């Protein structure tokens, strides 16, 4: 009886397995378990883990914290729109906000130092995609994620929005400049 007909033996669950199936199931199960335990293993021994530290917030509260940082640590401005470039001290809380259609402010960080990078949205969902290093997280309105990062490559990184956020989505860029350790 083929697969589109009822099984020939009504007590099919007592049929013995063919060796090929039993062997493969064993191999596949071992591989599945290896892949499963790889994730907790990386939490303990790996260096790249996404933060589960997050807080509920509001656009007003988040804007206020970001503005305070910008007022305190802006070192220069860029482009005709005079976008602030902020250089917060190592170890501090750094605020980045996404809004239609801009990442604000631009950041300057020091190689090898650790920062608490807060990421939040003023309006809709956005996607934080740092290129070319290639780090991606979701930015959900009403929440701020705190990612503890240690930039270890010198140079310019671009933040691209990779969650569709309307007609200006493809123009939404930001920057993180990483300077050499002092």
């Amino acid at each position, binding site marked *: 009886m083929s697969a*589109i007909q009822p099984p020939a033996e009504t007590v099919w669950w007592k049929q013995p397995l063919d060796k090929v199936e039993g062997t493969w199931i064993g191999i596949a199960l071992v591989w599945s378990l290896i892949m499963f335990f790889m994730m907790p293993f990386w939490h303990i021994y790996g260096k790249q883990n996404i933060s589960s530290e997050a807080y509920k917030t509001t656009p007003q509260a988040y804007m206020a914290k970001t503005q305070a940082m910008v007022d305190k640590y802006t070192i220069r401005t860029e482009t005709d729109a005079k976008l602030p470039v902020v250089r917060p001290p190592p170890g501090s809380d750094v605020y980045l906000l996404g809004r239609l259609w801009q990442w604000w402010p631009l950041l300057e960080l020091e190689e090898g130092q650790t920062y608490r990078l807060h990421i939040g949205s003023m309006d809709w969902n956005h996607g934080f995609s740092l290129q070319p290093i290639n780090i991606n997280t979701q930015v959900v309105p009403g929440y701020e994620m705190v990612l503890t990062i240690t930039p270890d490559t010198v140079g310019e990184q671009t933040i691209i929005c990779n969650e569709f956020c309307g007609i200006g989505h493809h123009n939404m860029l930001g920057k993180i400049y990483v300077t050499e350790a002092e």
Partner: protein
Amino acid sequence: MSNELYRTCPESGLQFHKPAERLMKAHAVVAVVILLLGGISALLVTLTRMPAVHLLPADRFYQLLTTHGVNMLIFWMISFEIAILYFCSSTLLKVRLATPKLAWVGFALMLAGIIINNLAVANGDASVMMTSYVPMPANPNFYLGLILFAVGALIGCFIFLATLVIAKDEKTYEGSIPLVTFGALTACIIAVFTIASGAIVLVPTWLWSLGYINHIDAAMYRVVWWALGHSSQQINVAAHVAVWYAIAAIVFGARPLSEKVSRTAFFLYIAFLQLASAHHLLVDPGLSAEWKIFNTSYAMYLAVLASMVHGLTVPGSIEVAQRAKGYTNGLFQWLRKAPWSNPIFSGMFISLVGFGFLGGISGVVMGTEQINIIIHNTIYVPGHFHATVVIGSTLAFMSLTYFLIPTLFRKQVAFPAIARLQPYFFGLGMSVFALAMMGAGTLGVERRHWDMAFTNAPLSFDYPASAYTMMGIMGAAGLVAIVGGAMYILVTVVSVFFGKPVESESSFGFETSRVMRAEPIVVPEGGHAAAGKWGFAAPGTFLLAIFFLITFVLYYAVNWKYLASVWPMS
């Protein structure tokens, strides 16, 4: 059975309940029309993302990408699947379909939903992508169309279940339901879960868009929406695996290696597959690592285990059937001598290999909690799901169509020469397309993005030249796949509406086993293993499976190494 409500296909031996038959035809025809709409939008979207062409303006691009996503991932798939559910219950169990009139109500609701949703998107104020993440607003009819469609599909699911009850009650079969029907039952159970999740998230969202609810939490929306969005693709997985088994039976008269193993694998789908909605939330704020690890791995990869089992048992059952017919030389004579010019088989086999190697491996890799950091929302993601949903499900359904045209529609397959080539154009084009997307995504190219050159942005960024090359390859391969899709629609539409009636099995177009009246496979002396090697009934398949595993392990390891090169973070 002399009852005029039934018709027995003289060639295949399949028995159709006429009211069910009309419903299957209606759902299949709507599905193919939707596929055409999705295909036209696919062409325009592809030509826009090809850097050298960049066809559409931004607003049209986002609008058509929404059209493409919703029609292909929801409307085409589920419309075709309702036809499959009716076939697997009424036809395979030789029983009347429960309440055909109510089934027509379901059909009408689905059709109304499709029209209402598409009109909303065409209106231009619902370009929110299939995901429609709040608080980005859409025309309320966008959600209303989806809700109506879901209610219609839910009616179809319950009619399928009721038909199983009738068959059991009226004893139209002995013992257990066929494996393929069991697979369809799996798809149905997942569909009910999916639609319930959809109702929980879309009904409030619809009320919100009308102004009756003033706030929907954006993070909660994502968690519940993905229980709809990802699970709906798991319906497809269960359905296309059932179709693989069905085609192995139709073309080769193959029987499952063991009913126990294949059914247990389907049961693992029911129990664990839906956890994978977490795949989309791995880099979301506010979810704990424990929650992510448990859910993204389907509780220790038990659903992946199930797919790896099907990936062995489907070709394994074909190998055993072929060996029993005398193709016993070496490890792969059974495969070389398979009917590669029969699109029912060739499409199914490309579907199986593409789903496993491209869709399966990439899905597990990017669904690994930490590796998702280097993949989330890049164009790698659509690369993955074009391999699962398009090569896996769509191509499997296309292959089945070449069997349904003569049996269900009683028409000869038109342009058999085109039909023979169709799975190769579609399957291979789509494979290269998906691989190029994964390549571009690995280089950081974003999905759902109109301009990878950022021409009008106040700041600038240049992707490496290799990323542009990948996107160019994606476009060229996508065009080949679209030609393959057009070939399918041409053959199907001409056959069904203008085709010559079937007179005998020789006018089917493609050789099939005589399905229900097939001679049982003769067990060789000493059991099936004697026709194989190393005590294995299907040694060639086992070797292919080991090759798959090696590919899997290597690719998995490469991605951990890549992850280790990005900035430390916690």
